[in-house]
């Protein structure tokens, strides 16, 4: 038995190149399919990194100011946890510090999306069967997916290295390679997870959870030490990036860590892929009940979305706990600096600084909640284009009732996750629970406007509904890097989040909150009216 298995396992090796037959064609095909998605991801990421030096020059113009910043960071565990430790006061080093971790996380998300899209997604939809029936080697699909990710990360590294070279070539190369390295670590991680699950959605979710864990490990490690030397930091690929110490006497010996992780994870993925059949997974599907309890279209919508609602709920609650726990320390930024303390006290005292930090963090969670609401609303489009909506609507279910189920999960779910984030803050911070909960909920009208845009787009044409991601992405971009780029106010005003009152700390303004709620309601109404009038698409 063992002997036969061994022979069959080794048999393909005689025709080694055949295992990879068709990889080139598949790679070109993958890059062609991603011809819009990848350039956008790369451009946004590179823009974020390359715009940072100018922003920093504006904020900390003189060397003395930059040196001051470093001293503050050495004493402030919370900010280190959020961003990481600083190793030098040059503009290059500060750029690497300020955006490195976030650019790397973005590269990781891009990579995991690309890899899952060209592996598990293809198997789940059944496309892989047709492809594999052609002159395609057993290892070609996975190889093509990883190469596509490698091309994307390579271009990103090239752009970042070239763009930052003016601040020091070695440092620029370290930042570029480090960010691309993190990207490839998560590309190969996604390749492993894609072998384990049968659902592409679950594969993406699990890999994203690993990324979240990597972020938390690094944050915990960095809050403990100010030079990135904690064991926890070293456990996280994001921690390796900061330990490269770009623009601060680069430690090139960290790079082989990336290479080793990529090769090891890649080898595991290939090994797993070689041990399973097309379309199968290592986590088998269990049989379900022979009789169903689902009674309504609403119950079906909840059943289909409850897993992702649970995932987002846990994520938002934990984010609240973590940021809540950091809040106390953020106010210590003032440290022993008597001058700075006086300034902050004049600005509104200790609580003023705490509130600014809380408002920024809650605002960021609000922006991320916009991604949830888009994903959830777009389930409608997914159900429709996959053909699953057709038999449901051929029953005594109207289009309004069918969409209402998903919209309740989308809009109610966004309220739930923001509420849970607020409770997380209450657990982590333990003070001002009421105002913090209020601040979380006040994000909702803006979140709902984005959801309303998605409903309208789906109502007009489900194939155009994917444009809702572009809207959410643009809003995220405006919210995160818009202010730093000195973008004109008219552009900032395009984002509904720009009109929200700055809570906690600021004045509650009912005007914009109610207006945004009304806009969201109008968008949803228009979207549903359009949905009732148009043809169903398959």
């Amino acid at each position, binding site marked *: 038995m063992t002997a036969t298995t061994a022979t069959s396992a080794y048999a393909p090796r005689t025709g080694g190149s055949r295992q990879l037959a068709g990889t080139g064609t598949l790679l070109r095909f993958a890059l062609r399919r991603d011809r819009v998605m990848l350039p956008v991801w790369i451009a946004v990421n590179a823009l974020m990194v390359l715009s940072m030096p100018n922003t920093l020059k504006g904020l900390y113009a003189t060397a003395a100011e930059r040196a001051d910043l470093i001293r503050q960071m050495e004493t402030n565990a919370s900010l280190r946890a959020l961003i990481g430790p600083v190793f030098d006061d040059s503009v290059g080093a500060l750029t690497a510090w300020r955006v490195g971790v976030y650019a790397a996380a973005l590269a990781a998300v891009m990579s995991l999306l690309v890899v899952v899209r060209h592996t598990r997604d293809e198997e789940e939809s059944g496309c892989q069967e047709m492809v594999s029936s052609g002159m395609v080697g057993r290892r070609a699909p996975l190889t093509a997916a990883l190469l596509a990710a490698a091309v994307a990360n390579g271009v990103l590294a090239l752009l970042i290295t070239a763009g930052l070279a003016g601040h020091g070539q070695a440092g620029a190369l370290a930042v570029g390679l480090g960010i691309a390295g993190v990207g490839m670590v998560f590309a190969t991680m996604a390749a492993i997870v894609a072998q384990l699950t049968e659902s592409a959605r679950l594969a993406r979710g699990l890999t994203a959870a690993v990324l979240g864990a990597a972020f938390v490990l690094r944050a915990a490690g960095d809050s403990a030490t100010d030079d990135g030397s904690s064991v926890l930091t070293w456990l996280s690929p994001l921690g390796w990036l900061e330990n490269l110490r770009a623009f601060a006497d680069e430690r090139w010996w960290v790079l082989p860590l990336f290479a080793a992780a990529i090769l090891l994870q890649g080898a595991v993925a290939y090994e797993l892929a070689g041990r399973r059949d097309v379309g199968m997974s290592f986590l088998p599907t*269990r049989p379900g*009940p022979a009789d169903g309890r689902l009674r309504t279209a609403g119950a079906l919508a909840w059943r*289909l979305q409850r897993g992702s609602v649970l995932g987002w709920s846990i994520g938002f609650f934990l984010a609240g706990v973590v940021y809540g726990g950091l809040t106390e320390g953020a106010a210590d930024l003032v440290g022993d600096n008597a001058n700075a303390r006086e300034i902050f006290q004049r600005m509104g005292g200790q609580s003023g600084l705490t509130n600014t930090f809380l408002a920024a963090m809650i605002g960021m969670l609000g922006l991320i909640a916009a991604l949830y609401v888009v994903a959830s609303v777009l389930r409608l489009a997914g159900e429709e284009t996959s*053909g699953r909506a057709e038999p449901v609507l051929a029953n005594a*279910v109207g289009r309004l009732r069918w969409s209402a189920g998903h919209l309740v999960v989308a809009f109610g779910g966004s309220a739930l996750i923001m509420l849970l984030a607020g409770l997380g803050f209450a657990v982590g911070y333990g003070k001002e629970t009421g105002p913090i909960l209020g601040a979380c909920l006040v994000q909702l009208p803006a979140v709902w406007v984005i959801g309303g845009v998605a409903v309208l787009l789906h109502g007009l044409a489900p194939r155009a509904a994917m444009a809702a991601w572009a809207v959410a992405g643009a809003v995220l971009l405006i919210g995160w890097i818009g202010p730093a780029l000195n973008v004109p106010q008219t552009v900032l005003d395009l984002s509904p989040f720009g009109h929200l009152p700055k809570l906690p700390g600021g004045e509650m303004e009912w005007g914009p909150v109610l207006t945004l709620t009304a806009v969201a309601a109008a968008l949803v109404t228009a979207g549903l009216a359009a949905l009732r009038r148009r043809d169903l698409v398959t």
Partner: protein
Amino acid sequence: MTNAITVSGLHKSFGRTHALDGLDLDVETGEVHGFLGPNGAGKSTTIRVLLGLLRADSGAAQVLGRDPWADAVDLHRRVAYVPGDVTLWRNLSGGEVIDLYGRLRGGLDKARRAELIERFELDPTKKGRTYSKGNRQKVALVAAFASDVDLLILDEPTSGLDPLMEEVFQACVEEERDRGRTILLSSHILSEVEELCDRVSIIRKGRTVESGSLADLRHLTRTSVTAELAGPPNGLSHLPGVHDLDVQGLRVRLQVDTDKLDAVLRSFAESGVRSLTSTPPTLEELFLRHYQDEAPAAEGAQGAMAR
């Protein structure tokens, strides 16, 4: 007799494509109506208009006396639909989907459901993609046959079913007919249509080209005749409706329009008949004739095939 489905002059375009170009369809209450046509003829488009999933550009459609677009939801309480390609949710078991569809239709006969699962040999505990194509069809078929409706719309429902299951399907359709239900059956399996359907409509390029009972349709086409005569044949080639005449001594082979058969037989009788075989047109020939273009080129091709 009242009509379960009445469609007249239906038009539907997708951009530049005219999927339906003045389609007519009449399905009488209580009959099994075959709905035939080549791929892309507009069968599924018609069915989706009848289900209120698409809105017709012009023309009139009535299902069970109601407007399929405006009264979609109320109408669907009395209609069950089986698509040709059933897509299931990956995390729902087949049993859950059957019950969901039943409840969304306003009720399901539990005993009938159990009986159908038994007869179709379906495992209701499996989930989504672990079903094969044929088993996914069975999930939709059980849901449709177990619900208490007046009209079943089946769009190539047996694609992927094995011959045994095909037999179960045919038995189920006959039971439904015996209960007085109306069935619109779109299918490419001609034996199935011949077995089940009272009347058929054949559509091509979005138009109805033929409608009636199979006997009516047969009448419109040609019969193959082979005869051994006692004396030399006489004037056969001048008879109307005779095609592909082939005379070898006393042996005659020919095709004749079925309604012109009498004249041929009279002519044979004059010469004296030793043996005679007459084959009615097969369904395949019937449909090929309707499916193919009426252009001369296609006519020639059909002639070649008939020979």
